[in-house]
């Protein structure tokens, strides 16, 4: 694979005469802006080689190996800023993240201006300083238009962190232009197209990804997933099996197969498959997350008592695994579908209490989860016509959103504000809020209604079609989409005529 060529180039540096100064070693290879790669400052050629190996491992999604390489690099050169930075970016433990960021900050004066930009990109993002992140990232991209690794990382940042799929695709396309067989970028690009609904572009990219890495399971897994997103379930199952043939314990494909069965309505098969996946989860947190999906299969069957028991068992597992955010998520989900108001209030209270237990959840994740709990409270209050309560909770959520630039919290606020405004029949005011959450099933259903009431039938029909075609294996999809499809099949499509104002 082409990515490894860089590793070989770095290894050659180890053969440079020992007399070379540390500073000179730090300036090779590349000459900064105008060359293909950014300069990397380290006193140890071995550390540099390990760092590059880590990047290749990361791009191919071997995260533990990547972390190991970067940690080994730091053993060779404790003052290796980029290695500290990359560890801080990928390590899951919040305390370790903070420690690595602190080390990186302390080393800022010892590196090149471009490395400082890289540090700003990563550190500003960790501080929710989006403007700083974007300015630093774009500046570096302009300076190194042929650094495929930078473009890959930028595409990942734009997609995974900001959900800017169009921009992410543009960046991944540049990485693929530099290296048409760059596996990591092909994987990203396939998803970036799929998230925009551009399946005709996504499928060939994923097929090429399979050609580039024919013996690895992830390309088959990724292709299966975008087939599922497009509603091509049988083909998705086929490719998940192809992935598992290559690596029988590949957790993502074990899970993907279960998700696909769930969306197909094969809930018994889905539960059995989730149980297998849970056995092969990478961490306890993933196991809990997948247990929640297992519990959600009962919702798809409308077996609500069984769902209660299943979600409580997932909450218990989360508690025992010290994953408070997921424990809260289990209780919050239970509140979402309860018909009994007292029961819903009880589960929401338990969700809040879970966040106060001592556990491994970071402060940001707690705030995000709290925002979701408020969102659910508001949704239920509006459903029951308790507008005063809904508005009071919205105020609390608004305070959290004002104090944060976190996209998850922001979206929870907008979805809730839109829900309240819809209840007040303020359609035009509700629309911009709901559009901020335009692919969540609850917000989409409200948007269909808002567009209809506001005299925008073409937008209503387009959103209705998107909602009916949504194949995300989430609780929200399970609670909204099947019923929406059934209702839609019973009646004529929402007025398909477009008005002049409907643009």
């Amino acid at each position, binding site marked *: 694979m082409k990515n490894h060529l860089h590793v070989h180039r770095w290894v050659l540096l180890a053969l440079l005469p020992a007399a070379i100064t540390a500073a000179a070693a730090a300036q090779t290879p590349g000459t900064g802006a105008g060359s293909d790669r950014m300069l990397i400052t380290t006193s140890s050629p071995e550390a540099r080689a390990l760092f590059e190996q880590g990047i290749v491992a990361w791009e191919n999604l071997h*995260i533990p190996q990547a972390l190991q390489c970067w940690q080994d690099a730091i053993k060779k050169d404790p003052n290796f800023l980029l290695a500290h930075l990359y560890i801080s970016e990928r390590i*899951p433990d919040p305390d370790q993240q903070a420690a690595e960021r602190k080390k990186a900050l302390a080393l800022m004066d010892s590196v090149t201006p471009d490395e400082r930009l890289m540090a700003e990109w990563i550190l500003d993002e960790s501080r929710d300083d989006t*403007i700083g992140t974007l300015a630093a990232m774009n*500046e570096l991209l302009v300076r190194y238009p042929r650094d495929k690794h930078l473009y890959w990382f930028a595409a990942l940042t734009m997609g995974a962190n900001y959900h800017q799929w169009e921009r992410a695709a543009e960046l991944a396309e540049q990485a693929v232009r530099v290296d048409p067989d760059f596996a990591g970028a092909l994987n990203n690009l396939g998803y970036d197209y799929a*998230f925009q609904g551009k399946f005709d572009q996504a499928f060939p990219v994923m097929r090429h990804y399979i050609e580039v890495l024919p013996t690895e399971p992830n390309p088959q897994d990724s292709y299966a997933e975008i087939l599922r997103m497009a509603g091509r379930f049988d083909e998705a199952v086929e490719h998940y099996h192809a992935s598992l043939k290559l690596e029988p314990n590949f957790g*993502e494909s074990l899970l993907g197969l279960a998700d696909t069965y769930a969306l197909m309505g094969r809930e018994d098969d889905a539960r059995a498959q989730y149980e297998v996946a849970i056995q092969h989860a990478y961490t306890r947190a993933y196991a809990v997350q997948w247990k929640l999906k297992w519990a959600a299969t009962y919702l798809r069957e409308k077996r609500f008592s069984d769902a209660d028991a299943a979600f409580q068992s997932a909450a218990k597992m989360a508690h025992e695994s010290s994953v408070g955010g997921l424990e809260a998520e289990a209780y919050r989900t239970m509140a979402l579908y309860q018909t009994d108001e007292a029961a819903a209030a009880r589960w929401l209270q338990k969700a809040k209490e879970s966040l106060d237990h001592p556990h491994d959840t970071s402060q940001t994740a707690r705030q995000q989860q709290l925002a979701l709990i408020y969102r659910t409270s508001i949704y239920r209050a509006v459903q029951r016509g308790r507008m005063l309560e809904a508005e009071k909770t919205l105020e609390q959520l608004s305070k959290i959103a004002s104090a944060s630039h976190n996209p998850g919290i922001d979206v929870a606020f907008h979805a809730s504000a839109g829900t309240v405004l819809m209840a007040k029949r303020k359609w035009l005011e509700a629309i911009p809020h709901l559009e*901020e959450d335009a692919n969540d099933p609850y917000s989409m259903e409200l948007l269909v209604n808002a567009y209809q009431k506001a005299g925008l039938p073409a937008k209503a029909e387009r959103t209705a079609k998107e909602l009916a075609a949504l194949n995300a294996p989430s*609780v929200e999809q399970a609670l909204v989409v099947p019923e929406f499809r059934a209702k839609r099949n019973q009646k004529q499509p929402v007025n398909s005529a477009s008005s002049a104002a409907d643009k």
Partner: protein
Amino acid sequence: MKTFRLIIFGIIFVCVAECMCAAKQMAVIVHKSNGAQDVTTAELSKIFKCDTRKWASGSAITIVLRDPATPEMELLLSRIYKTNPEDLRNFIAQHHDNVVIVDSNEAMLNAIHTIPGAIGLIDVFRIDHEVKVLKIDGKLPVEYGYILRGN
């Protein structure tokens, strides 16, 4: 989907991330040496409508725009100019000494880098280090309630 599941460590939000598309967020940008930091919607409106022609420092304001029919102009049209593309074209023709039209994001950034006193508009995800993003009514493009944010 190994990419996003493994890479996003905020585990709870994976499902949201799978299907979430963010709204467009247009940044109002000036040269980084410009002393302005924060403007009100009313002040911004006066600037873009050529009612205010100088910065507080006394330097002349040059407005840099994309073609009024481009997607990048939609929010500015509806929320600041409150007009349609055709009327904005007429307005630009009447104020050609104060307004520059560019045809790409790169050209927009280049104009802000090089024209003293320039003010323009770009998708916030394309800003660089050489421009300053102005707050509007105390808010940045990434903050809820920011006026040039929406679909």
